[in-house]
């Protein structure tokens, strides 16, 4: 027979097809209601604009929903998910083709297209879907990685889609056998079933079984469609939606602004205080567990789990719609449940967990559907700090110190300009025509070890002939720790004060060795009238080398690994400039640790955590030190004053193992530039 005539009869052997169409109606109604129910809740959240810049959003959708760049990072999960996901898309397309062919009367399901796509490709992808399902089932039942959530629902979903795929093949195979389909071999797996069943089953049995399984298949599919929006399978719709409406700003700009003149409560302690997007985030979670898997606090055994925060609040939200709170009390109304406190109500949001977050952003970077876990944590901290004044003592001390002394390092014996002793560094009053401002930062001025980094940076700038000045005694904390701890009020006051001060001095360009200051200037000060060209010192120094203004003379023999500061890397996407400096200053390329760049592991010092005494067996810096020692590096390069002290402490605590020196990239470069400095 001629291939161009190839096709098959839709609804062969099926009578009372109307019943299927009739079934479609309740299916769609139930599924639609499932989605509507979710959207209805989101609409109770606070407003937020997430529809601007559609082109960028569509681009994001293509990279992350269609091409699933993040999902496929985790290889084992990536493979099975790709198999099921592509199978799902191909099979949906195939169904659409049938629909157009049959119900629209457009006979497209014929000829080559029928053979290549509708028969062969669909058959192969159907089989691959089954492989994917089996892999997922193997992972869930045998491998059982810790990061997954083990629910009956998840197992049921796998079972149902497995049955749908298998019944699909049986229907196909028995049709091929019963009709002696001349193109049957174009569907290789269906054909195998046909060949296997032929000798065993009479024509009559084939026909009867075909009809029975066809209906089973149809009912399963419809049932699944109706059920899906009520399960985590809703992510099929929610994920793309969530990716489209995700924040386009860098992680470093993800904290919400509070308008103190309008805000009713400061921070968040109820579902009602979240934005609609936060609520949508709860529903979009696929339970994949990547966020918790990458969370440094969780890794070292603290109770913080970003996944559980999202999922517990999801459950809390769903229960609240029915007026249920804490499992059983059905006495509350949905309204009061929506407004009732969340902090500590579910385990995941206990203050202990909230005060373990380093705001490193690893969770946000890992999440395949762009859920923003960290800003929610900070939102809840804000409530504890601003409405309750209930937060860890040592953090209180840091905040109080910022309030009254303009820096968080209570008890420091250093002054703002001590680091410059013996150097010819000018303050902005003495050099108001300076081209750039070197923002020293509290860490760079008031923590002994970091003053050496500030010195190296200043000396490099001087050597390169850069006209720079510092604020000196006028400098005050940018407010980063206050903001991350949750005192948004203090942060905003500092942001306004500092922006005004810098504007008054006519500052245009800022260089800083502190990624936290860098992030704050770059992403947060513009809202307060502070618009500056901001450089991390690694960026500026790398440029000076490129321009030939700094001439590295020596290369160190020492093997170096580089530790990405969260607020430079993940928060601001700068991974290369500091590595470039390491490369310039040493013979070999930097050694990469197991976790680096986007997936780098925090030093433990962000989010105000360097002002907290961690239990010795649960220290984030201890784990990072272990990862450093795992390489054969003799030095670890850093680019942040907090990383410097956290990693020095971490390595010192493991002194017995191996001595690795922590050095800032500016120190490495200074060593290589100045002939008289020894390493």
């Amino acid at each position, binding site marked *: 027979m001629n291939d161009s005539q190839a096709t098959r009869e839709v609804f062969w052997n099926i009578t009372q097809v109307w019943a299927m169409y009739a079934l479609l109606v309740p299916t769609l109604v139930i599924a639609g209601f499932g989605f509507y129910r979710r959207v209805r809740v989101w609409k109770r959240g606070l407003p937020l604009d997430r529809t601007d810049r559609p082109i960028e959003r569509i681009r994001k959708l293509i990279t992350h929903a269609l091409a699933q760049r993040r999902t496929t990072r985790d290889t084992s999960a990536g493979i099975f998910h790709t198999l099921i996901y592509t199978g799902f898309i191909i099979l949906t397309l195939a169904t659409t083709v049938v629909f157009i062919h049959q119900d629209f009367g457009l006979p497209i399901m014929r000829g080559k297209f029928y053979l290549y796509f509708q028969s062969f490709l669909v058959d192969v992808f159907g089989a691959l879907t089954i492989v994917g399902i089996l892999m997922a089932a193997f992972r869930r039942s045998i491998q059982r990685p810790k990061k997954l959530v083990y629910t009956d629902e998840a197992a049921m979903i796998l079972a149902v889609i497995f049955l749908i795929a298998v019944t699909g093949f049986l229907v196909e195979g028995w049709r091929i056998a019963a009709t002696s389909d001349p193109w049957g071999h174009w569907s290789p797996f269906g054909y195998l079933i046909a060949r296997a069943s032929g000798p065993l089953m009479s024509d009559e049995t084939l026909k009867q079984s075909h009809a029975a399984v066809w209906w089973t298949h149809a009912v399963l599919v419809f049932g699944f469609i109706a059920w899906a929006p009520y399960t985590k399978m809703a992510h099929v719709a929610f994920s793309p939606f969530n990716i489209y409406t995700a924040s386009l700003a860098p992680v470093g700009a993800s904290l919400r602004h509070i308008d103190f003149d309008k805000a009713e409560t400061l921070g968040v302690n109820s579902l009602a205080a979240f934005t609609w997007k936060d609520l949508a985030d709860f529903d979009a979670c696929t339970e994949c567990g990547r966020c918790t898997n990458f969370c440094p606090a969780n890794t070292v055994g603290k109770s913080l789990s970003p996944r559980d925060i999202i999922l517990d609040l999801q459950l809390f939200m769903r229960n609240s719609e029915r007026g249920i709170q804490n499992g059983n009390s059905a006495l509350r109304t949905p309204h009061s449940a929506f407004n009732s406190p969340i902090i500590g109500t579910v385990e995941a949001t206990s203050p202990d967990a909230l005060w373990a977050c380093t705001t490193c952003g690893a969770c946000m970077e890992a999440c395949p559907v762009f859920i923003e876990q960290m800003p929610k944590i900070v939102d809840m901290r804000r409530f504890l700090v*601003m409405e309750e004044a209930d937060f860890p003592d040592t953090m209180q001390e840091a905040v109080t110190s910022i309030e009254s002394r303009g820096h968080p390092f209570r008890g420091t014996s250093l002054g703002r300009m001590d680091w410059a002793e013996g150097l010819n560094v000018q303050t902005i009053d003495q050099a108001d025509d300076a081209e750039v401002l070197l923002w020293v930062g509290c860490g760079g001025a008031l923590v002994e070890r970091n003053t050496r980094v500030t010195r190296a940076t200043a000396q490099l700038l001087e050597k390169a002939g850069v006209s720079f000045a510092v604020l000196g005694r006028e400098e005050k904390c940018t407010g980063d720790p206050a903001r991350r701890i949750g005192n948004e009020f203090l942060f905003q006051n500092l942001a306004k004060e500092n922006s005004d001060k810098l504007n008054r001095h006519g500052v245009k360009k800022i260089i800083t060795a502190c990624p936290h200051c860098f992030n704050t200037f770059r992403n947060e000060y513009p809202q307060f009238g502070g618009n500056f060209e901001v450089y991390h010192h690694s960026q500026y120094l790398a440029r000076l080398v490129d321009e030939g203004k700094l001439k590295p003379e020596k290369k160190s023999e020492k093997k170096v690994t580089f530790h990405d500061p969260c607020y430079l890397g993940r928060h601001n996407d700068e991974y290369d400039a500091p590595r470039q400096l390491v490369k310039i200053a040493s013979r070999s390329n930097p050694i990469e640790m197991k976790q680096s760049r986007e997936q780098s592991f925090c030093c433990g010092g962000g989010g105000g955590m360097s002002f907290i005494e961690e239990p010795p067996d649960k220290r984030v810096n201890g784990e990072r030190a272990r990862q450093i020692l795992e390489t054969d590096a003799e030095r670890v390069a850093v680019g942040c004053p907090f990383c410097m002290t956290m990693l020095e402490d971490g390595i010192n605590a493991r002194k017995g193992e191996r001595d690795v020196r922590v050095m800032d990239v500016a120190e490495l470069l200074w060593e290589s530039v100045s002939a008289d400095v020894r390493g």
Partner: protein
Amino acid sequence: MNIVVCIKQILDPEVPARDFRIDSERREAARGSANLVTNIFCENALETALQFRERAGGRITVLSFGSESAEDSLRKALAMKADAAALVINDGHPHPDPFAVARALAAAIRKIGDFDLILVGRESGDWGAGQTGALLAEELGVPCVNFVDHIDSDSDGLRLKRQTDAGWEIFAAKPPVVVTITNDEHNVPRVPKTRDVMMSYRQTLTKWTLDDLDTDAASIRAANSYYEIVDLLIPVKETQCEFIEGDSLESRVENLARRIQEVTDAL
């Protein structure tokens, strides 16, 4: 119960040693880049008052005698939930002696009205004279109990607790009384809620000049009537390092003992 807590704004005593300078002309600590903060013992006094109010009720007024900038300290006290605040602006001598301060505060307290309990920090972190409490009691003609760290009340009046080397002393006192407060792990000043900090800027704060008070303003302005600061300097600490030599452990120990004897004899 009407409670008045007197607070003083001072130069941050935690300014790094290297930044600390003395203005020898004015015979005072140079402001430099240091900030102004509320004296810690005054904050302990306020905290003690707040805790007492939680148990026994009452109304707390915070009072300061100082420059305009002392408003910040009073606002912070309001944020910590004091009920009212009053500032007597000192337009006289920048460092009034404790007698002048006590007179100004007493006049202001009389103007505030009835009082039962006056709390004062045991001393200030700048001059550390520790006189104001007792002198204030004298001015007001009421008794004074010093170095208290906890206040309670029962049907007989107040119970004032103070720590001594031997244990606790509990004083029973009938108001009105002046009490000076020392620090204790239980009266660490609370961190105010941000909401309250915001609200504190909207609260009214009474401001008086010395002329508004029923007192001899001129003598307070003149101040320094009882003593004069002749000179002010930073003590110089010198350390010398000496190695004790010897052939054996015994001889080194002997030499060390002899040297210690010599040094102590010389003192």
